[in-house]
Structures are given as structure tokens and as C-alpha cells.
């Protein structure tokens, strides 16, 4: 230490140090100047940018989805309810190790590959970085508890309660009430600005049925709140709030018990039934069988479930009573009888002699009566009432031929044929009520006299929906008032007025004649539907029908057992009751049933009994007064198959799958043209 000391020049060292210190102090002051300038630049010069950015970080406008309106039946039973459902979402931010979180979640919650697929898809579409992305819907109580316990390990994971639609009666109202489901990309892309606003925060939209048609009423008005959120997107406090308005409640004309009665009476058979209030057009019951569980769709149907429904040969997704188009068969006869009377082509007393077939002048082609093959001859001497009661084909072949399409078509239009009924659910089809113009446009062929003859028994080009049949018979029952069928009775207590779409003035005695004929069908000794009125303490007017699916060549017999199931005849019934003061009109169709099971008329009878007399029957329970049937629908077969065999066999070839296609195929048969 000391040896160095003697060489040191302390004064000089101190001088050097002073200079160095001065330089360093200068450098420091300069750097402090830079630092202060930097903070000045951020805090004063760019203050507005950053304060905006900070507000943007902090405050978010959150939509508050409205509660969807409820749907009630006519007696106030809830058909579409809201129930809380718990959704697991993840807020993906820089703090989240997504893989670790997902791996942990998999041990707590049943997360399917489909969930993950959807999650990653949504993650890609994410707009706001702190938006929660739903991963799994409908958490169970156990899962919620497990998530709560592990919350500390699950940063960014949240469980949200939302109200989702619930249909307590499952498939009973699948085709009327319809269902809601997640708004899909296509719908989202078509939304207007206003719709985007209204649906912010709402994930479900009505897809079919009342849910779809009354969407704007049911939805309600979205509310909003300005919330302060932290960096993890969690709401810290609400700054301002505008409450949402609940959607309007919709009350239907449908009656839960009646609807159940219809389903019981159909007993799982493929077909449909519609019951209308004759005085208002209110739809009392409407069933399309088979149905499906609308609850499957609410939070998004799984691929396999949808595939099963969509590919089923039973086509449960088709709403048969507005989308199924069938030849009317003989159910068209009462309307044709009215046309004949009203337009002067026939009268009550006029009789024809029925040899069992009809031939156009100068032709050898036989239009056969159903009695020809069954009884080897015709009905004999037949007047109008008897023609209806016994469903005499020859009478109506001849009548239709004489009237011609130019008279029949406009008359039928008064009864709603060939046009959408305007029922308040979407996707209704118009059917075909043929006219000369329609045939020329559709087939580029002229109208042949044979075409007129076919209309006489509701075959040929005629295709009607079950709802159109119901409207037609309701119009007859109300003696000329065609009410628009309406499912909705009231929206938020405001009752919807009945709508009369058309009215036709026809003489009372003409109505009376047709009413009597139709009453004879059910209550007459030789009525084709005499089995359906047994034991009823009120009078039923009805008309049976058989709609042919495939044509039979001249001289051949129809042999049901030899045909594919889908080519068998449809069995139809239309009717109303009570005859003296009609209340309810019904149309029923059993597809490809071919009189193998209980007749469609028995379904109608069950509806009448329930509506007019409050008699409800369990599935398979027979109508008491019908002697030979005991319990199962299978047993009904014997009692019914004999009296009703309404064969109207012309060599038309109709493919009944046509109603599933957008454009109905119009077959042109050689046999008809050869009659020209």
C-alpha cells in the first residue's frame, strides 16, 4: 500500500476526478432531460390518444339479451319455456396456457371432440380479444361444482348462465310451435345492422313453426350496459344500464289435451291430422307424424342426431300437414257436389244408373268405380246424397266431365284449393288444383276431357295438403265462410281477429243436401264411414277417401299386399261435427296405410269426442261403441277394412314422393290421352 502511495499525486487524482464527475453529471442531466421529454411526449403531447386507449381498455358495452316470450296453448299450458343453462367459456388471453387449461377441463367436464372443433372455429372468428369463447353447453350440477372447486387453477375460464328454450312436451308440438336454434353463419351474414343490434347477446333464433313466424314478437328488445372490465375481461362494475324488454308471450289456439288425443289416436302411424275451429279458423290441433324432439336443436343438434332425423325414411322433419301434398281421393266429392248443384249441372233428385264404370263417349277406356272389383258391379240407381254416402265414383266421373275444369277450378278456389292457406307458420306448400292454364304451362299439353273425369275422384293432377283439406271441409261446415287457419290466438293478450279469406253464397238447400250426404257417410246404413259414428250422441258429417299412389293398368286388380309399402294407398277422412251446428272440422290422412290399420275416420272420431264431449282416450284405446275392436290398433283392422274400400282406380301413376320435391312431377299417361 505504501509503496504505491509515494508515487500517487493526490491533487492530480482529485482534479481528474472532478473533471470526470463533471462529464458524468452533464451526461446524467442530458439523459434525465431525455427521460422527462419522453414522459412529456406520452403524457402531454399524446395524452388524448392514450386516454382514449385507456377508456377503450376499460369500458365495454355489453348487450343484455331479452328473455324470450313464452308460448302457451289455448288453456295457458306452457308449450315453450325458458330454462337456465350453464355454458362453459374460456377467455383466451396472453395469460392463458390454452392447452394446459383444456387438458385440465377435460378431467372435470365431459368435453367432446365436437365441442373442441366448434371451440377452435369460434376462436378463429373471434373479434374482441377478451371475448369469452363458449366451449361446452348445458353443464350439469356436478360439473358446475367441480369447476367451482378448481376455479383457482382455471384462469380465464367462466361459467355463464343463460336462458335457453325448453319444450316440455317434446315432439308433440315440434311441427307447430317449432324450435329455436343457434343463429348460424348464413343467417348472421344476412342480418341487417338493425338485426345485428337486436340479436347482440342473443344466440338463438326461431327456425321453424311459431318460433320462426313470430320471431320478432317473441324476441323482445335487447338491453345494454356499460361495464368496466379488467384485463381478463371480468366485469368489475356496471356504469350504466338499459334494461331489456321481455319478448311477447304468444297464446295458441292449439289445445294440449286435444293435441295429445290426436297423437294417441294416430298411434305412431305415419300421417297427419288437422282440426280447425269452424267459427274462427283457429287451429285446434295439428299433428304431423312422426315428429321429433325439438329440444335437440336448441343448443345445436349433434351431427349424428341430425343425420338420423334427416335420412329417416319416415321423414320426421317434414311438416306433413302443410308440406305433404296428396291426391285428395274421394274427399273432394262433397265440394264437387256443391259445385254441381250451385252451377246447375245436377240437382238433388237427379239420378244416374251406375254400371260400375264410366266411359267417355266414343272411347272404350273404363273409369272404374271402386265397387266394380269389390262387388262385381255398380251402385245401381244413384242420386246425389247416395253418391256422397256410398262414394259413388261413376256419379262424380260423369259430373266432373260435364262441368269441366273451367267450372270446377274457380269453384274449388273458393274453398282454398291450390293456394297456400296462409296459416301462420312458414314453409307451407300450395298443392295443385289443376286448371287448363296450369297444365299448358306445366306440361305444354292441352286439357283433355279425361283430365276432367279424374278430378271427379280427386286423382289425376289434384294434390292437396291435409291443411287444405281441413280448410275445405271447414268452409263447407260454415256454409261458405273460408277462415284463414291460425295457430295463434293472441299475442301478449291481444286477441287476433279471425280472418275470412273468402265467402261463397250457395243456396241453403244445396248446403243441406251435401250436409245430409256427408251425414249419411257416417250415420247411414250404407255409408262408407258408418263405423265411425257408432255410439256418438251427436251427428257427424264426413267423407272418406282413398288416395292412390300407383296406377293400375286396365283390367288389373289392385292388390295391396303385392305392393311396396310406399306404393300403398293413403287413407283419408274429412269431416265436421255436430252437423246441426258445426264447431270443429277435421282432416286426417294415414299415409300408405291402405286400410291395414284403424281408419283415418276413427282418428277424426277421437278428435270429435275429445273436443265436443271431453272424452279422452289413451293410445290404442278403442272407441267403446265400435263392437268388434277391443284394444290394439291392429285389432281395429278387421272391423274397418270391409265397409270402407273406396277404390277409385284409374291408371294414373303418381309418385307420392313428389310432395318432397320442390317441383311436382306431372305424369302424363297414355291411357288418358288415348281417350281424347
Amino acid at each position: 500500500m505504501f509503496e504505491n502511495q509515494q508515487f500517487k499525486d493526490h491533487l492530480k487524482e482529485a482534479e481528474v476526478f472532478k473533471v470526470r464527475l463533471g462529464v458524468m453529471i452533464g451526461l446524467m442531466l442530458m439523459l434525465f432531460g431525455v427521460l422527462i421529454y419522453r414522459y412529456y411526449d406520452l403524457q402531454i403531447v399524446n395524452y388524448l390518444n392514450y386516454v382514449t386507449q385507456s377508456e377503450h381498455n376499460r369500458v365495454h358495452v355489453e348487450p343484455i339479451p331479452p328473455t324470450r316470450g313464452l308460448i302457451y296453448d289455448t288453456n295457458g299450458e306452457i308449450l315453450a319455456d325458458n330454462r337456465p343453462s350453464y355454458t362453459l367459456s374460456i377467455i383466451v388471453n396472453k395469460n392463458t396456457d390454452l392447452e394446459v387449461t383444456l387438458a385440465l377441463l377435460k378431467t372435470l367436464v365431459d368435453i367432446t371432440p365436437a365441442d373442441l372443433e366448434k371451440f377452435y372455429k369460434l376462436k378463429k372468428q373471434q373479434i374482441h380479444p377478451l371475448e369469452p369463447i363458449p366451449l361446452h353447453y348445458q353443464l350439469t350440477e356436478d360439473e358446475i361444482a367441480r369447476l367451482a372447486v378448481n376455479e383457482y387453477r382455471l384462469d380465464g375460464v367462466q361459467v355463464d348462465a343463460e336462458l335457453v328454450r325448453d319444450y316440455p312436451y317434446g315432439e308433440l308440438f315440434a311441427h307447430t310451435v317449432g324450435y329455436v336454434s343457434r343463429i348460424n353463419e348464413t343467417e348472421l351474414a344476412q342480418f341487417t345492422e338493425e338485426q345485428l343490434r337486436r340479436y347482440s347477446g342473443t344466440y338463438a333464433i326461431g327456425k321453424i313453426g311459431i318460433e320462426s313466424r313470430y320471431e320478432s314478437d317473441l324476441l323482445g328488445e335487447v338491453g345494454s350496459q356499460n361495464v368496466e372490465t379488467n384485463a381478463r375481461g371480468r366485469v368489475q362494475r356496471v356504469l350504466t344500464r338499459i334494461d331489456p324488454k321481455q319478448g311477447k308471450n304468444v297464446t295458441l289456439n292449439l289445445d294440449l289435451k286435444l293435441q295429445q288425443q290426436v297423437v294417441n289416436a294416430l298411434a305412431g302411424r305415419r300421417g297427419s291430422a288437422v282440426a280447425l275451429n269452424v267459427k274462427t279458423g283457429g287451429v285446434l290441433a295439428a299433428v304431423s307424424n312422426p315428429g321429433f324432439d325439438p329440444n335437440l336443436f336448441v343448443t345445436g343438434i349433434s351431427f349424428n342426431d341430425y343425420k338420423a332425423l334427416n335420412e329417416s325414411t319416415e321423414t320426421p322433419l317434414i311438416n306433413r300437414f302443410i308440406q305433404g301434398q296428396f291426391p285428395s281421393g274421394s274427399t273432394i266429392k262433397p265440394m264437387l257436389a256443391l259445385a254441381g248443384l250451385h252451377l246447375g249441372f245436377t240437382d238433388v233428385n237427379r239420378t244416374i244408373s251406375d254400371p260400375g264404370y264410366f266411359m267417355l263417349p266414343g272411347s272404350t277406356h273404363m273409369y272404374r268405380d271402386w265397387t266394380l272389383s269389390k262387388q262385381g258391379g255398380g251402385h245401381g240407381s244413384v242420386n246425389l246424397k247416395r253418391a256422397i254416402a256410398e262414394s259413388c265414383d261413376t256419379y262424380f266421373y260423369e259430373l266432373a266431365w260435364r262441368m269441366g275444369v273451367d267450372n270446377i277450378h274457380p269453384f274449388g278456389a273458393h274453398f282454398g284449393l291450390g293456394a297456400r292457406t296462409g296459416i301462420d307458420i312458414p314453409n307451407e306448400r300450395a298443392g295443385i288444383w289443376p286448371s287448363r292454364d296450369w297444365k299448358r304451362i306445366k306440361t305444354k299439353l292441352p286439357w283433355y276431357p279425361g283430365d276432367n273425369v279424374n278430378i271427379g275422384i280427386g286423382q289425376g293432377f289434384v294434390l292437396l295438403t291435409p291443411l287444405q283439406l281441413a280448410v275445405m271441409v271447414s268452409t263447407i261446415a260454415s256454409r261458405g265462410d273460408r277462415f284463414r287457419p291460425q295457430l295463434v290466438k293472441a299475442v301478449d293478450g291481444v286477441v287476433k281477429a279471425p280472418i275470412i279469406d273468402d265467402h261463397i253464397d250457395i243456396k241453403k238447400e244445396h248446403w243441406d243436401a251435401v250436409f245430409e250426404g256427408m251425414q249419411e257417410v257416417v250415420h247411414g246404413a250404407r255409408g262408407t264411414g258408418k263405423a265411425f259414428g257408432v255410439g256418438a250422441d251427436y251427428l257427424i258429417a264426413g267423407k272418406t277417401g282413398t288416395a292412390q299412389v300407383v296406377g293400375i293398368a286396365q283390367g288389373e286388380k289392385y292388390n295391396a299386399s303385392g305392393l311396396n309399402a310406399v306404393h300403398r294407398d293413403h287413407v283419408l277422412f274429412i269431416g265436421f261435427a255436430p252437423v246441426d251446428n258445426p264447431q270443429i272440422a277435421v282432416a286426417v290422412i294415414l299415409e300408405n296405410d291402405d286400410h291395414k290399420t284403424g281408419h283415418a275416420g276413427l282418428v277424426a272420431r277421437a278428435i270429435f269426442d275429445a273436443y265436443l264431449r271431453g272424452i279422452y282416450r289413451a293410445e290404442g284405446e278403442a272407441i267403446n261403441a265400435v263392437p268388434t275392436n277391443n284394444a290394439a290398433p291392429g285389432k281395429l283392422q278387421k272391423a274397418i277394412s270391409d265397409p270402407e274400400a273406396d277404390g277409385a282406380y284409374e291408371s294414373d301413376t303418381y309418385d307420392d314422393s313428389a310432395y318432397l320435391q320442390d317441383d311436382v312431377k306431372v305424369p302424363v299417361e297414355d291411357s288418358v290421352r288415348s281417350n281424347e
Partner: protein
Amino acid sequence: MSGHDFLRRMPESGAGFSRRDRFAQRFHIDYMLLFLLLAISGAGMVVLYSASGNSIETMHKQGIFFLIAYGAMFVMAQVPVDFMRRAAPWLYSLGVVFLALVLVMGIGAKGAQRWLGVGSIRFQPSEIMKLAMPLAVAAFLSRQVLPPRLLHIVLTLLLIAVPTALIIKQPDLGTAILVLVSGMVVLFYAGLQWWYIAAVVAAFGASLYPVWHFMLHDYQQKRILMLLNPESDPLGAGWNIIQSKTAIGSGGLHGKGWLEGTQSRLDFLPEGHTDFIIAVMSEEFGLIGVVLLITAYILVIARSMHIALNAQETFGRLLAASIATTFFVYVFVNMGMVAGMLPVVGVPLPFVSQGGTAIVVLMAGFGILMAIATEQKRIMSSQK
């Protein structure tokens, strides 16, 4: 002490022997420095309370650390400067051994290995080096004829390089920079020839490329790249800087008010209670608060420089200047990085950021400064 050292100065006036000053002399306290440090630590506690989300627990812990820190300062102030010089080589050697041990058997977190564990006690040897480095370099150079000759310069650089390299290896870039600076500035104050300084600057420029490619870890490279363009990865690497700039900028002139900073209180600002605490302060107290704090730091540095200038001999002078300059580096690097001017390296804001050992070591440094400041008076009073 050589004879003429304490004869060079005489007490300026009788006021220097008031009762208060006698107390200060006895316990080697520099009132001005103490007052400034207390002011900054008080302000720091206020900011930390908000930054920690009104956490009493944090206040409690920080308070205890401050007690320990002031205790350390007081103890260091009692140590004779000459003893420090003699102890310096031993402390330095111990530090290097510990640093080597860290690499072999250290405890780590987040990809870095920084702690040594003895039983349940954990400590960071690099913190020892923050004091051992200026002590050792000052002790070594004060023995040499200054300005230093080339051999001594090389030896000094070696002295600096070994622990710096060991700390970089951990890796802990922030501490490495502080340790490096605390050694290098001693060389500078010792009169390192300007010619050498120019050469070093040039060499530094030339070494950027190899350093970038071979010495910096991925996360360090990322931090530097992100600094150039933080918006390139707003949810990842750039998040901290974007949010801290937003916090600072949105504070404006007056700030949003204490406990009203939305960026920090809503967790947008990461590390708001540690390295990024200046952003919280800027947001809540505005530019006025920032300038006041910087002023306090400047006063601390100025006082420290004054002490260095008046130190009795070369060792104390170099040591005091080094501690003051390192303190400046702390402040500048921290405030610069939070404001997006400098890469984000782990350097806390002195006496404001939460964190125990850094505060204790810094305060011990100021204890050394006080020991140097009062050395002359001690000698004077012992003469009485």
C-alpha cells in the same frame, strides 16, 4: 491514514459542532441524504399501495424490508471506510464463488437460475455483487497510480468481466448491466484515458453482432425486437409495453388520482407493483408526479456526488461516485424501459418497486456513502 489527509481541511464554522451534528457525527448519518431517501420511500409506499391493489399485506412486507434496509444503511454507515477497502477483496471473492455455485446448484424460476438456497433461506448472490463490485474495483484502483496503466486496466476489466459473465449466464440481464456499470464507472472516474473509452465504445459497437447471436437468450432477443415494434405482437410480447405506455400517457399532466388508475387497477398493466410501477405512478399522479420523483432522484444523486467530491481519499471518492452513478442507471433504465425507450430488462425502480433485496442492497450502498461522508468529521471529532 496518511498524515496530511485530515489536516487538509478545517471545520468551517462553529455551527458544525451543534448538538444535532454531534449526533450525526457519532452515528455517521447524512441528514440530507436520509431525508431524501425517506421522502422517496414514503412516496414509494403510497404508490405501491395503489399498485398492489390496496394490499395491506404488501405494505406490511415492504415496510419490513424498509426497516431492514434502513438498518443495513445504519450498520454500513458505522463501518470505517478503510475497513471496507481491506474487506473488499474478500467480499468480492465470496461473491464470485457464490455466483459460480448458483450456476452449479442454484434454484431457479422462469428459465433463470438466480438463487442459492441454504436450508430455508434463499438469497441472490448477484445482489452481493452489486456492492462487492464497486468496492473491489475501487479498492484495487485506489492502490494504483492514476490514471491507470494498461496492465491495471486489463486487470480491472478482468475483475469486472468474471462476475458479469456469471450473472449473464444465469441469465439476469438487468443485474448484469448494473454490476457491469458499477465496475466500469469506477474505471471511468479513476481517469481511464479518453482514448481507451473511445476504443471501448468502438469495440462495443463491433461486438453487437456476436453478442446478439451467441450470448442473448431467445427471450432477451424477443424483448429487444419487441421494443422496436411492440405493436407487432399486441397480445404477446408487446402487451406490457403497450399497456404501460397507455397507462403513462393516459395520466396526463395531473394524473387520474391516487387509487384511480384504471390501467393498473383493472390489471391491464402487468408487473404494475414491481418493475412497471412507474407506469402506475404516471397514471395516477401525472407528469407532475413523475417530475417530482425525478427531482428527488436528482437530489439524491447530487448529494451523493457532493459526498464523492468531498471524500477524503481516492477509494472513498471512487466508491461514492460509483454508487451514485449506479443509482442513476437504476432510475434511468427503469423509467426508460417502462416508457418504451429501452429494452425491458429486470431493473426495479429504486425504493418504489416492491422487492426486498434490491432495496436492502441499495440502502446499504447509501450507508457506505454516509460512512464516506462522515469519515472526515469522524476523524475531526476523534481529534477533539
